[in-house]
């Protein structure tokens, strides 16, 4: 049944540090690689070498510019994948029961053998976390690498989602957000981790750490700076004559 569990034993999820992310897209590629070769149907591409390539991805990195009222604009790289919401609308809208949230760890998954590819779960997701695979005709989404995190055939260091393992900047963290003493929960508390679109009432498990404020450039950076300032605001000497001569030519000044 596509009823949501009342509560989950653990709330496994990601914490994404917008201060640290450098926008390299390595998580996008490693996600595509792992999830094409492992759990479920491969993530297909359509016309990959043609004029209009597109394909299924479970993780995509946007970039946003934030312009404060005062000061410099800031560029923020923004990885986005399934947030494994506590009140996941994508689960309850599913007509077949293919979409479900696990009671043991809160991971939202799709049973690809039962999915009819109606797309309603993707319609109900505000985050664009679900994509219908055009080759397979079923819905694909982040599995939180459910086939890695419990996989005893892998070395322990690799038992984390592929995107987290790959991130060269250390901007992605994985853990139990339901346990207040876990490293990820402490990180969220310390840095003021936030929800995306909280007004949608989805209660996302994944949290985003806001970028730290930028250093301010002070007015006077060096005590010698005043000595290097221009000595005349109005041009003098030859430049002054040239300025006046050019003014007198027909055509006007800008």
């Amino acid at each position, binding site marked *: 049944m596509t009823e949501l569990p009342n509560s989950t034993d653990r709330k496994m999820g990601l914490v994404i540090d917008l201060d640290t992310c450098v926008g390299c897209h390595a998580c996008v590629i490693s996600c595509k690689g792992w999830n094409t070769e492992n759990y479920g149907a491969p993530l297909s591409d359509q016309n990959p070498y043609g004029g209009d390539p597109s394909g299924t991805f479970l993780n995509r990195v946007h970039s946003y510019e934030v312009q404060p009222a005062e000061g410099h604009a800031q560029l923020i790289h923004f990885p986005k994948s399934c947030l494994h919401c506590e009140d996941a609308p994508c689960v309850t809208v599913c007509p077949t029961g293919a979409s479900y949230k696990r009671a043991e760890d809160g991971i939202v998954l799709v049973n690809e053998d039962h999915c009819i590819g109606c797309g309603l779960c993707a319609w109900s997701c505000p985050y664009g976390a679900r994509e219908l695979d055009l080759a397979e005709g079923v819905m694909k989404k982040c599995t939180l690498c459910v086939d890695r995190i419990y996989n005893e055939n892998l070395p322990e260091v690799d038992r984390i989602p592929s995107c987290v393992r790959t991130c060269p900047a250390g901007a992605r963290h994985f853990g139990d957000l339901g346990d207040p003493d876990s490293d990820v929960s402490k990180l969220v508390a310390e840095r003021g981790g936030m929800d995306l679109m909280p*007004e949608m009432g989805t209660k996302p498990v994944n949290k985003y750490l806001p970028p730290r404020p930028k250093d301010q450039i002070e007015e006077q950076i060096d005590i010698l700076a005043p000595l290097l300032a221009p000595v005349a605001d109005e041009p003098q000497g030859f430049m002054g004559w040239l300025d006046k001569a050019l003014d007198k030519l027909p055509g006007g000044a800008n």
Partner: protein
Amino acid sequence: MHPAPSVIIFTTLSGLGFGLLFFLGLGQPAVTGKVAFVFYAIAFGLACGGLLASTFHLGRPERAWRALTQWKTSWLSREGVCAVGALIVMGLYALGAVFMDSHWTLLGWIGAALSLATVFTTSMIYTQLKTIPRWNMELTPAMFLSFSLAGGALLAGAESVAPWLLAIAGAVQLAYWAKGDKALENSGTNLGTATGLGDRGAVRAFEPPHTGSNYLLREFVHVVGRKHAQKLRMIAFILGFALPLLLILTPVQGIVIKHVFAALAVLSHLAGIATSRWLFFAQAEHVVGLYYGKR
């Protein structure tokens, strides 16, 4: 939203078909024999044709039967259950009317209720989506139900109620457009809340994740044709409500001309509703478009 032809055909035809089944179930008109056969053939043709069209947009249509299982939580599943129930009950009722010259009143009422419930559950599939503020309004089910009843009354030849139902449907349509145009703005969702960065300054989409298109953009960000929206609204309103109203209220002599006018009213209404339904999808903004700096 991408205005998929399969979904537009489905909601337009089956809305009309279940509207007619509603009136037939109530014994309006209380036809039997060959005439009843024609009426029920039209009703089932529209309702089943629409349902069949809806399976065309599925990635895996061969598994469609599974959609009947999750009625506890899913409006799409409830719609499937109601549709199958309405078709079975009204099928039995039709057997009585066509072959046994009898109307099983109670069965007809149950069938009528299930037909209306099918239209309501269809509308709730769209209404429930908070991600599409233009659909997430009480006026969405009001629109689907009033359209279905007006179209059903037209087809059933219910002369006494059809003008009123058409007028109500037209009014609901105007209200839906007026309220819908402000829905995204009033929802409070913008790129600031989507990224959580809104309290730091003005957020602008600087660079998309990829240069090409993707499923999300194709499915949720449809901007082609929106520029003609006002013209299409005029066409939808005139064809859907004004012209049919004029055609059925015009006093005419002779049964043949009367039937020709009624047929024209139905065809005009059908074209108008299809146009309105196209706009229903094409104008709907999904909040995921915000992440791409689009709507």
